[in-house]
């Protein structure tokens, strides 16, 4: 009996809805984007089981085969299965996209937080560098880095390519992180932390960084879309991933242009893979922004 009597008093408290469920209910498009991303992730992780052929296997008996039972998306001029190459290409796209967005945004967030926290001359110096870096179009900066650094592969990923894509994102993230930091530094709890004698590092990492997680997450998803696009563009130009590694941009590059009429599927499917991936990340990113930052909702 006692248990029954206490139950109503708990009911009075406003019911805390599950934040995940809230997101699902308020952002159906974001969920759609997330599901598409999930499909890509599954393709990347399970490529070995999903892809019916070895993506690098050359089969001169099946050159430029039409899409059909044997090859869902047809084959290219070397008889390689386009579908398998797209499935494996998800690995390259996601690895480069996710890693470069994470690196670029994390460094940018720390630089921006430090800039906003210290203020004065340090802030001024950092902001001038950011200004200068922002006056280069993203792809230009990335191409310079590729030209100077060359290639360096480890664990199947070209780390210099990741650096090239991450670098242009640093100043953009730093800008955003700095402006969020400025409003946080004015809060009393930062004064309290200073008065308690905490080190600068501790204040930045423990008190400021957790408070700029929302803009960080928004930027990371937005940059993943851009990074995938940038990797595809660089690979297309022959400055990114190199043959025979399957990558969407690379599949569209070079010789494939000779096959417009004889094998249009070589052009259609890889481009669709890029577009859908960028679309999904954009969709998810937009919803995340609307959800995390109601002020931006229009």
């Amino acid at each position: 009996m006692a248990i029954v009597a206490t139950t109503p008093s708990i009911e009075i408290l406003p019911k805390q809805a599950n934040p995940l469920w809230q997101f699902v209910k308020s952002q159906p498009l974001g969920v759609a984007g997330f599901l598409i991303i999930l499909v890509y992730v599954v393709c990347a992780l399970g490529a070995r089981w999903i892809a019916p052929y070895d993506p690098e296997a050359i089969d001169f008996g099946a050159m430029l085969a039409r899409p059909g039972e044997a090859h869902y998306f047809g084959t290219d001029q070397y008889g390689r299965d386009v579908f398998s190459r797209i499935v494996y290409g998800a690995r390259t796209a996601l690895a480069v996209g996710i890693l470069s967005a994470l690196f670029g945004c994390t460094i940018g967030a720390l630089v921006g937080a430090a800039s906003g926290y210290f203020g004065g001359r340090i802030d001024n110096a950092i902001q001038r560098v950011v200004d200068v870096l922002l006056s280069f179009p993203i792809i230009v900066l990335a191409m310079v880095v590729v030209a100077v650094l060359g290639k360096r592969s480890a664990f199947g990923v070209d780390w210099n390519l990741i650096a090239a894509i991450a670098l242009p994102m640093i100043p953009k993230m730093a800008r955003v992180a700095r402006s969020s930091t400025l409003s946080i530094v004015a809060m009393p709890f930062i004064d309290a932390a200073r008065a308690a004698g905490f080190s600068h590092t501790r204040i930045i990492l423990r008190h400021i960084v957790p408070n700029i997680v929302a803009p960080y997450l928004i930027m990371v998803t937005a940059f993943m879309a851009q990074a995938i696009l940038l990797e595809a563009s660089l690979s297309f130009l022959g400055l990114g991933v190199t043959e025979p590694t399957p990558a969407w941009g690379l599949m569209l590059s070079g010789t494939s242009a000779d096959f417009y009429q004889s094998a249009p599927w070589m052009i259609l499917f890889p481009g669709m893979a890029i577009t859908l991936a960028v679309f999904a990340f954009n969709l998810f990113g937009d919803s995340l922004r609307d959800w995390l930052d109601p002020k931006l909702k229009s």
Partner: protein
Amino acid sequence: MLWYVIRRLLLVIPTLAGVAVAVFFLIRVMPGDVVVVKLRADGADVSEETIRAERKRLGLDKPLYVQFSDYMVGLAHLDLGKSLWTGDSVNKEIAIRVPVSFQIAVMASIIAVLIAIPLGTVSALYRDTWIDHSVRVLAVSGLAIPSFWLGMLIILMLLMMFNWLPKIGYVSIFEDPIANLSVTIWPAVSVGYRYAAVATRMMRSALLEVMREDYIRTARAKGVWMRLIMRRHALRNALLPVVTVIGLEFAFLIGGLVVTEQVFNINGIGKLFVDATTRGDFNLIQGLVLFIATMFIFVNLIVDLLYAWLDPRIRLS
């Protein structure tokens, strides 16, 4: 307004100087060595001796401060050095390729504005109807489609429908406008689509915001014709953010051009940059990056000035 222009112009100088310094350091100080990358590009085994000789030939063995002062003195004379590949001056290499890229960039911007303003307006006016939804889907997909792939789709379409390919080779628009346009229109459309998409989104949300303003309600309460309200009050104010987008998106326009020129085999700035990068011609890279960044800074300056001219609140603050 004059003071505003002068103030903005003065602010450009330190940024340009910073860009010049940044380009120098990006190429010479980053871990990595242009010469090694260039000579050992295909895994070729090149002796230390050859690398040292090449470095000497390019003047990369001199102390950094000497290189820096040479570079700065050259810049002061607007001299970007010589291309390592062709031996021609970088200025000349860039100058012969500017017209075609410039023309495509301008055409892409015009296409973008012509598409964005009516579509954005219609989308805002018929908010949450099927017209609005389809415009928005079109706009969101514009952000996702890589411009070079769109270019390939256009070529594919031209081939399938008309069995016709745009000619290779650029003729000045003053010599033969039709031949010129039949080459340049396709890359302009592929690059302009993204531009149009961003501007449409901006136009829609700006117009929706303006329509909520008090002065619009007052005008409607007075019984002013809806068409007149749109023309006199709403569209004028909504155009401001669209102008900004055009400046911000210029970077993407350049990026799109770099890749799309490759698809249509157009010998412009973008193709030159790609060639320079694959050949490790760092003098040319340096010159091109400086050139592109300078263009970018000036376009943003012009947009800022345009913005101030359109909106008195900005130049007076």
